């Protein structure tokens, strides 16, 4: 072994110190490595679940697959709302640098006019970064394939096929079925069903009106998922998803409506403004719930432009309102049926007579009637709709409370659960109401009773309530409730509702029935055979009504059935048929229609015919009328009613 040139002591000291210091350095390194192992254990053993989730989140991108929206069907499974394929173009904002250039390129392939271009730019600018923007919808196959071929030159633009809602009867069901429209920023909530990311899917629409809105969640279904593996730039590595769960289609909803009856209502109204509601007076099924004029629901699915929407919203006949539920007016003379029933239930003799000279002075004021009816009993007072009879009859009932109670028993003044929103309950006044609503004049004045007797004054009702009243009158036994939704996703809704008893003397009901038959046979709806069905002995029974558009008592000059449209009175008509075995009840409102019978009774007859002709039992009866039935008629029944 060679010797060190330095002094041995020094060498040993140097070596000794080195050993100690090297041990120190090694120890520090060892501590450092131990710290690293500790950290590894923390990341890889303790917190591994959290990081595994983050890694998954990195690795996969989940595309939501919009479920097909549930169909809406009528009582005979006629499609009222379905879905059709829609070729559309989507823009992935995050992959496009110069959006203006892409839109300009696209303009050479499909037609984009200047206002649409401006709107698209605004939409793209407003859209959240992660959600694709719909650039165009409803492309023709030619346009669709043209864009598809050029797709590589249009970064971020993809052509795809979606589904869009379609309403085969564009206007007939626009209010009751409603419509879907694009999701607006205001629709999206932080929590609850409208926080679902599917709402951000391009072309996704939610229900905004009617059944579409009320049953939006059921109709929506559950979105499916396609999980794609992506790289750090978000590009899918394969067009095949690594995992996919199919979308669950929305529930099918069957309504009690009848498409033929509803379409007949659309026809019958033409340009008139008003509403028609028809119910099965045994089951309460709503066969028709129509508001006129209507609008094209499909236009709202595409998106209505500002000017178009303003035109609809500002039109004086208010097409956007569902008048069957929201238009409340005094029921007019249709209310006389309930006043008469109140009187009968109080024991008033139907043979009581009053004399009508067109004018009647009472309480320091002159009350008038459209004509001088002479001396009438109750039956004829209903048939002829004599106001002066009912002013006095109402006064004899001792104020409003008995009439109000009867009105409520027949469904007025209350909301009825149809399953769709937006009803106005109207008003049935009584002494308590007066106390509540008029703190400065809380007393029911006797002078307010006669007005109520002819269905004017504070009273207000909507077409649905009048239809319910009519159905209950026609039924006579049960307080039928309307049913609009027959089944949701195959589950029958309210199959056996068990209606409350009406608790009215059947003899009194029969009396009202005969009086309503007389209205059509020789009363206010007989002139010009406006309420004739033309179905042999299957006849309608009804009652006309006129709601004053202005309060004549306050000195305003009413135009009645003449003058400017907006000044004319509203026409009501309630009817049921067949008059001898009631099956269907309806109510018709014609806004500013003038005198009830002429404006509304023909519409009622048309709509009623449609329903009767579809009913197999009644069809059989019309085609082969039984000999006995031919002998029985209104004339034969009317006296019976009076005797009862």
């Amino acid at each position, binding site marked *: *072994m*060679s*010797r*060190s*040139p*330095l002094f041995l002591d*020094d*060498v040993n*000291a*140097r*070596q000794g*110190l*080195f*050993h100690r*210091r*090297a041990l*120190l*350095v*090694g120890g520090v*390194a*060892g501590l*450092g*490595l131990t*710290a*690293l*192992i500790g*950290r*590894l*254990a923390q*990341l*890889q*053993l303790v*917190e*591994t679940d*959290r*990081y*595994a989730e*983050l*890694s*998954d989140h*990195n*690795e996969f991108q989940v595309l939501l697959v919009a479920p097909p929206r549930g169909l809406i069907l009528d009582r005979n499974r006629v499609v009222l709302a379905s879905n059709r394929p829609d070729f559309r173009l989507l823009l992935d904002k995050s992959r496009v640098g110069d959006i203006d250039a892409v839109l300009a390129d696209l303009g050479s392939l499909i037609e984009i006019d200047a206002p649409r271009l401006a709107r698209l730019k605004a939409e793209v600018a407003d859209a959240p970064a992660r959600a694709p923007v719909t650039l165009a919808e409803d492309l023709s196959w030619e346009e669709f394939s043209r864009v598809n071929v050029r797709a590589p030159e249009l970064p971020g633009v993809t052509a795809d096929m979606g589904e869009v809602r379609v309403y085969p009867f564009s206007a007939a069901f626009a209010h009751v079925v409603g419509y879907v429209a694009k999701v607006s920023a205001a629709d999206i909530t932080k929590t609850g069903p409208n926080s679902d990311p599917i709402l951000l899917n391009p072309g996704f629409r939610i229900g905004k009106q009617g059944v579409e809105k009320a049953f939006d969640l059921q109709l929506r279904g559950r979105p499916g998922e396609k999980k794609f*593996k*992506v*790289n*750090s*730039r978000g590009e899918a*590595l394969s067009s095949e998803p690594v995992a996919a769960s199919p979308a669950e289609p929305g529930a099918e909803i069957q309504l009690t409506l009848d498409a033929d009856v509803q379409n007949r209502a659309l026809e019958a109204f033409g340009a008139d403004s008003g509403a028609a509601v028809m119910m099965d007076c045994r089951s309460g099924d709503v066969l028709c719930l129509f508001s006129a004029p209507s609008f094209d629901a499909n236009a709202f699915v595409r998106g209505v432009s500002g000017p178009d929407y303003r035109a609809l919203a500002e039109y004086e006949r208010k097409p956007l309102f569902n008048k069957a539920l929201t238009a409340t007016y005094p029921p007019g003379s249709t209310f006389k049926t309930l006043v008469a029933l109140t009187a009968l239930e109080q024991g008033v003799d139907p043979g009581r007579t009053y004399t009508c000279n067109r004018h009647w002075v009472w309480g320091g004021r002159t009350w008038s009637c459209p004509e001088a009816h002479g001396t009438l009993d109750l039956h004829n007072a209903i048939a002829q709709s004599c106001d002066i009879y009912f002013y006095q009859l109402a006064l004899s009932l001792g104020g409003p409370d008995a009439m109000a109670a009867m009105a409520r028993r027949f469904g007025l003044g209350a909301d009825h659960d149809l399953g769709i929103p937006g009803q106005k309950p109207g008003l049935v006044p009584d002494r308590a109401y007066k106390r509540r609503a008029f703190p400065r004049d809380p007393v029911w004045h006797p002078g307010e009773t006669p007005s109520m007797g002819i269905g004017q004054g504070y009273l207000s009702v909507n077409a649905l309530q009048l239809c319910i009243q009519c159905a209950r009158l026609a039924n006579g036994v049960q307080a039928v409730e309307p049913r609009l939704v027959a089944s949701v996703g195959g589950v029958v809704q309210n199959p056996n509702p068990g209606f409350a008893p009406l608790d009215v003397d059947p003899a009194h009901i029969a009396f009202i029935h005969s009086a309503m038959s007389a209205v059509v046979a020789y009363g206010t709806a007989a002139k010009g055979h406006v309420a004739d069905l033309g179905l042999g002995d299957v006849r309608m029974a009804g009652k006309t009504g006129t709601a004053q558009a202005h309060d004549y008592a306050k000195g305003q000059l009413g135009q009645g059935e003449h003058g400017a449209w907006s000044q004319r009175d509203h026409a009501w008509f309630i009817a049921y048929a067949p008059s001898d075995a009631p099956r269907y009840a309806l109510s018709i409102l014609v806004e500013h229609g003038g005198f009830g019978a002429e404006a509304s009774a023909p519409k009622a007859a048309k709509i009623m015919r449609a329903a009767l002709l579809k009913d197999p039992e009644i069809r059989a009866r019309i085609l082969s009328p039984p000999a006995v039935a031919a002998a029985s008629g209104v004339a034969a029944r009317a006296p019976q009613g009076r005797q009862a």
Partner: protein
Amino acid sequence: MTLGAISRPGERDRLAVKLTHVDWTVCLLLTAIAGVGGMVLYSIAGGHWSPWAAKHLILFGLCLVATIALATVDLQVWFDLAYPVYAVCLLLLLAVPVIGHATLGARRWLQFGPVQIQPSEMIKVALVLALARFYHGLDLDQARLSWRLLIPAALILVPAALVAHQPDLGTAILIAVTGGAMMLMAGLSLRLAGAGLALLAAVAPLAFMFVIKGYQKARLLTFLHPEADRSGAGYHIIQSKIALGSGGLLGKGFELGTQSQLNFLPEKSTDFIFASMAEEFGFLGSLSVIALYAAVIFLGLRIAAMAHSHFARLAAAGVIVGFALCVLINGAMVMGLAPVVGVPMPLLSFGGTVMITMMAGFALVLSAKVHRYSEVASGSGALL
């Protein structure tokens, strides 16, 4: 071989005998580390040898042969070459700002025809050589505390400052700390070392405010709050932690590391290769790799401790300290314990110059083992 044969004069100098004294355990450990590196590089290339794995393994193979060959070179040769090598490396380092090749905003590379070299890596080994050479002739008192210590201080700080200026803060710190550790092991007074550290602690905030470049500040701040900058500098740390954490106990499996395969992990083949490895092989895999490094460090320090010449001791220890620092800094960075600085994981990361200089360093370590009984004559080789 018998003891008698070894003790025969001249017997130790025979090549065949020298080869038997090469520390094959260390060679095996290094091969294992480089082999793991090759596997990971193969995997993250999507199961391909190119662009990294083949190059990495071939270069390692060549380096290993060269390292073993160099290990048989007499320590005296290293000793004599120490200052010239240091001088050449320093010149190259000086040349970097002038003719250097800029990548990613930093000028770190020199281009010689097809060959790219990184003088900041080479200076690490050169510094170890130069410091070992300096301290070999110095007695303990002077090594403890004397004016002559200004020389090693200059040897350390000049290249460290140049590298920091490139800017490559990580390597600069590495050079400074390696040099400091060598001075400490050579006998530096602990009081002086403590004073130096205290001074550093006092100067560091000032340096942060006035010397450190904007992006370096950003990196340091990002390290403190990685969530504040998810897409920028914080992205590296977040993605690296996700890669490590999602690996779990057993890993996602070979070629199944999504973070690196799908490019979420940046610099997956170089600075963040440990995260790629840990994602695929899990805690057990990363623990094994750390164990390999620990074994190399332990064996290296033992070789240093066994060497008879002070030069060999310090040279071997200096190389091992540099190696260990690389492992600790890179590990801490990948695991989110330290800011992102450009320090690779030795032998695991892909990178030619780093591999060559690291293996040149191990040539010194192996040589210290082979020549552990040899003394080195001081004074020869001039300069001091």
